């Protein structure tokens, strides 16, 4: 059997303001304080861990951003180069498209020259105000009048007539200048 616990007698001089201690329910105050302390410490540790992780991630992201920016600059350079090529190709395409109705003339000139004459210069200039008229200039060497007639006949076969023709011969070189006009615009369209 457990010994009885009692309060032993006390002979000391009494002290008036002896405290019995705070009510037990108030223990919640320090308990809550310590719980808050533990919670704050845990939160602080978590925040610090997250902050360090964020710093590492920010560094990785900045590195990645720099890589992407370099890649973007490289792609931008390629794109501008491609755009330049596109512009040039577009010009060529436009030129080709615009020169489609003149190509049969060039072919006719080339066939008319035969294999003995040499074409030194061939110029076909369309008048911007009168697009149905083309200024024709041809310079050939080792060419005679037969060659020139064959060439002009080939052009006429295309439905094109030469006006204001000027022909001159200087030694072995023959110059011919004329204004070409399509007799039938429908034929011009079909020639395209």
């Amino acid at each position, binding site marked *: *059997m457990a*010994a*009885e*616990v*009692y*309060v*032993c*007698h*006390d*002979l*000391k*001089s*009494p*002290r008036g303001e*002896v*405290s*019995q*201690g*705070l*009510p*037990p329910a*108030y*223990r919640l*105050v*320090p308990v809550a*304080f*310590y719980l808050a302390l533990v919670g704050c410490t845990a939160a602080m540790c978590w925040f610090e861990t997250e902050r360090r992780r964020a710093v590492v991630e920010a560094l990785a992201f900045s590195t990645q951003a720099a890589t992407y920016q370099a890649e973007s600059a490289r792609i931008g350079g390629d794109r501008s180069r491609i755009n330049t090529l596109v512009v040039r190709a577009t010009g060529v395409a436009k030129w080709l498209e615009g020169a489609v109705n003149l190509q049969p003339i060039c072919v006719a000139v080339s066939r008319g020259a035969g294999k003995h004459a040499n074409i030194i210069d061939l110029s076909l200039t369309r008048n911007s105000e009168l697009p149905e008229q083309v200024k024709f200039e041809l310079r050939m060497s080792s060419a005679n009048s037969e060659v020139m007639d064959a060439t002009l006949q080939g052009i006429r076969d295309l439905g094109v007539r030469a006006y204001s023709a000027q022909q001159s011969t200087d030694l072995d070189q023959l110059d011919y200048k004329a204004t070409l006009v399509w007799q039938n615009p429908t034929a011009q369209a079909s020639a395209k």
Partner: protein
Amino acid sequence: MYSEALKQVLTFQAFRPEPDDPDTVVPQRMAGKKYLCLSISKSRVVWRGVDRKGRLLSVGQADGEFPEILSQYTEEWLGLCDGGWVNVSLNNRFVITLESNLSRKPGTESLLRTNPRAVVGAKYDRSKRYAVYHNPETSASLLLSCEDSLVRSIEDALGGAGFRVMRVSCGLFAMVEDYLRRQHQVGGVRRDFVLIACCEGSACVLSQKKGQWGELRARGGFFSGADIEPVMGISAPLINGSGLGVPIVLLHEHAGGPFASALYSRLESHGAVDVTQPDHLWMVLTQN
């Protein structure tokens, strides 16, 4: 001031009774604190430290007047206690008497400290301090009267040396009260016995017959060493008056001392039983 109060709340000290709260048992007052126990006799002081877990430490003792011993061992004793708290047991200049029809109203114990005249009545002496233990079965009471000047001088001496008095008690009276309370607890209040309690040169002899406390003799600081004759001198009339076959209960401040052995040898043929526990006095003073 506020920081101290805050510290006490955060360390849960504010929820425990103060170390000098006389209405609380010592383990509750001194939870987590080490303190010093002093047993002060007429020409001898015995001390023992109690650690923060309530365990008794090694014992020390010195012969001489208390003020001289105090000045000599102040540093050592201060190292044995937190905050200078001391549990004092007095062994001289007290009287234990058998009284009857003392007031047993609730709060008598605290009233005995603040207004003893209301409890003791006509026997009140302003130069005394009192403690009482009531027989739960009868109207008899044990009344301890101790010299007020002795208590004050010890309190002043300890206070001057930097100590704080946790409790001042009479070791002999505490041992007798503890034994009688345990007898009541185990249902032996109707048993006949002669109790011989000895503590540091003081002795108390109480005879009980059929639950009634018959006679009591007590003297403080009247013997020393292993000389049992003074104790036998005051015990013999009660032993002889109780008749044959009545057990003699021996109680000492600690078990196995030469005095205890000599007294037991003398009274063994009369059916003496030594109920002393190891460190009996210190256990009574530190557990209650």
